[in-house]
């Protein structure tokens, strides 16, 4: 049961600029919640380490982030999978779409997330909310980055 979420952000910047930022590893690093490192390991492929805290729970995920289905400057899919060690694993992806709107750009996204292992087994009460929070965090930070 993948968790699905969607949302949108109205950005006061042209589509090309938003697109460029979506492809900028430094911007991505600053937007991925808890991201400690994001190293380029191939074309549109990164190795990332992120630490996330949900209440008393703290999990450090290591894994790959990929950009696929690139359709400049209209959108792409950003996906990642992280091994959280004893906590389990997390996988997720977001389809990002950019459209011109009100002189700026409307960024809309559909997120799918999956978690497994201990977090999935023990955190049922909280995982949907946590996944939503992390997804929202990413795009809120991105909006802030666009704003500058």
């Amino acid at each position: 049961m993948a968790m699905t979420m969607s949302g949108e952000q109205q950005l006061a910047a042209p589509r090309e600029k938003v697109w460029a930022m979506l492809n900028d590893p430094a911007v991505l690093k600053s937007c991925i919640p808890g991201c400690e490192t994001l190293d380029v390991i191939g074309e549109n492929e990164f190795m990332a380490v992120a630490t996330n805290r949900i209440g008393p729970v703290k999990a450090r995920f290591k894994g790959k982030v990929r950009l696929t289905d690139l359709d400049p400057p209209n959108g792409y899919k950003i996906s990642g999978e992280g091994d959280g060690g004893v906590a389990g694993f997390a996988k997720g992806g977001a389809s990002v779409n950019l459209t011109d709107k009100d002189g700026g750009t409307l960024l809309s996204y559909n997120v799918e997330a999956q978690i497994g292992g201990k977090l999935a087994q023990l955190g049922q009460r909280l995982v949907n909310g946590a996944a939503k929070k992390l997804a929202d965090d990413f795009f809120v930070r991105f909006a802030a980055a666009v704003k500058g």
Partner: protein
Amino acid sequence: MTATGIGAAVRRKEDFRFITGKGQYTDDVTRPGETRAMFVRSPHAHAKIKSIDTAAASGMPGVLEVLTGAELASDKIGNLICGWMINSKDGTPMKMAAHPALAVGKACHVGDAVAVVVAETLAQAKDAAEKVKVDYEVLPAVIDPAKAQSAAAIHELAPNNTIYQWHLGDAKAADAAIKSAKHVTRLDIVNNRLVPNAMEPRVAIGDYDTGTQNFTLWNTTQNPHVARLVIAAFVGMAPEHKLRVIAPDVGGGFGSKIFIYPEEVVCLWASKRVGRPVKWTCDRSEAFVTDAHGRDHVTHAEMAFGDDGKITAIKVKTVANLGAYMSTFSSSVPTYLYATLLSGQYDIPAIYCEVDAVYTNTVPVDAYRGAGRPEATFVVERLVEVGARELGIDPADLRRRNFIKSFPHQTPVIMAYDAGDYNASLKKASEIADVKGFGKRKRDSARVGKLRGLGYSNYIEACGIAPSQAVGSLGAGVGLWESAEVRVNPTGSVEVLTGCHQHGQGHETTFAQVVADRLGIPIDNISIVHGDTDKVQFGMGTYGSRSGAVGISAIVKALDKVEAKAKKVAAFMLEAAEGDIEFKDGKFTVAGTDKAAAWGEVTLNAYIAHKFTGAQLEPGLKEGAFYDPTNFTFPAGCHICEVEIDPETGHTDIVGWTAVDDFGTVINPMIVEGQVHGGVAQGVGQAMLENAVYNSDGQLVSGSFMDYTMPRADDLPSLKVDMTVTKCPGNPLGIKGCGEAGAIAAPAAVINAITDAIGTEDLAMPATSQAVWAAIRRVAKMQQAAE
């Protein structure tokens, strides 16, 4: 009836140690030089294991060994097996996939053991387990049993994930009856998957003696001898005589501790490898993804009715989810323990049942309290109840019209019921539950905005499994007799060795009551010995409500022999003919005289052997017996549940519970009532609270007590428990068995009551507040649409 004899509510002898904290459970056992094991488990439901890197873990402090399936294979440790052969309709045998104790090549469910770390301390083992690096390639997971047969095969040998396609009964007769029926009731039923959750998590200690080369396994098991047999003969750990299995106090089983689990095998094996005892204690979160689950059926069922509400046929198609591997007895549960009970308490001329068992990427499913019989009862009792509502006949009346009234009764599905009086239990239960006053109570509830409903469940079960020859012909890999040995000491005290195992049932008391009753000696002079393969010669363990009907029968048989021998001794002592010796109330007398000898005098004489020669009589007083039953036993009864529902929230309160059961002869009514209470609680749990929920990725999302709703004190009412008695003609004391009745009866009673209250049959288990609320809303919407 004496104060401690058969029928007396004797307080339990075993309780003193439990209430003072002196019970000895497996985790309380510590072996000198003990090491601790921690398993590395798959977080994926289905994944190829590309590689396992144990180097980092091996170098961690305190680590003695890190083992994987590769070492298991190279040490030629065999696979775990399912011991009950089921053949498909077409005659092909069931497709049993290899089940290594540590996964080889791929992991097939979340929690599948992939490696084990053995270290000096548990904390060190846990620290190191985190360093074992497993490279997985995740494969698509098959989770939904209803879709398993159209998914890619998990195990190559089982195309369409189908283990067997089995059937029982007469399809043509059932179809014909349905075709010509006045009315047919049809239901789609999901029998929800449950996690047994005995309060004591499983524990295993493997202890290899390098001197004698003997293995000892301390284990939380319901059947130590079967564990030894399987681990010796199939897993090949050691010859049977070099393996001792000890099951000390066991904190509940409910079926889940019958099976032979990977961890037991691994602890034994690892102990030999490290040369020290290896202990594994299961965490609760580990138990959720390793202990065999229960139930998990998807069923379509039809019941045909003829004139006057007479049931003419029942036809059932079930898909049974057996999980990722076939557990020890899993194949028998949805077949011979299920379809054979589909006649319920009713005279039904035509029955046909098809069962497809499937693999999925979930924890193995096996017997859980009732095992197949709760599923059967749920099908029958829902069909009868819904049928009555559809036909506009009072549900109790419809049942009465269809009850089997003469015995023995041969059903169309193997079972021959030997004795019962179903109307008696329905009548008594209806009186105790004040069914007559229900209408008024319903109106009173309505006045405060509440809905009220009443539901019956007239269950039958087949217990005391069973004649060995019969189960052998049905595919069982073992006989299901029981053994007993009665050792009488020179001073007259008695030790009874039984192959049954107690894990809450109170055998130390009830078995002693039977002996006290028979020998006329104080109950405190009797010890019941069990749970150690070095002490008891062989036995089949405790499950399926068999300890009374089969285990006690073996003791009675041994007591017969003891009495016969003691009479011989008494004859020599009293200088009388053996045939003139009478034994009553612990005293031997010579008929027609005042010559007498007390029990203790005779037992002493049996051992000092001064009154007879070895040629005349062997000294000593110790007799053994093996008892093989002649039939299953058939406990039955009527449970009535009354609920009150808050329609605004769906919150449902059970406001009344009446159970009237016929267990045949009752040794200790206090203990029997306790068994009913516990069974009902588990049945109510299934009906309203408990659900093992997998998401589509195969993650168990109700994997802790935070999400898997265990029944609490406040979820249950005070229960009214009563009995009727028809003795079982098949065993010496007339015992039928009581351990599973509540769990078998309860789910249908609850759902029948709730659906009665809310006016729709469209309600799946567990009927949580949300589910009941949603069902009420559906009814309201349909009513709105109709207007």
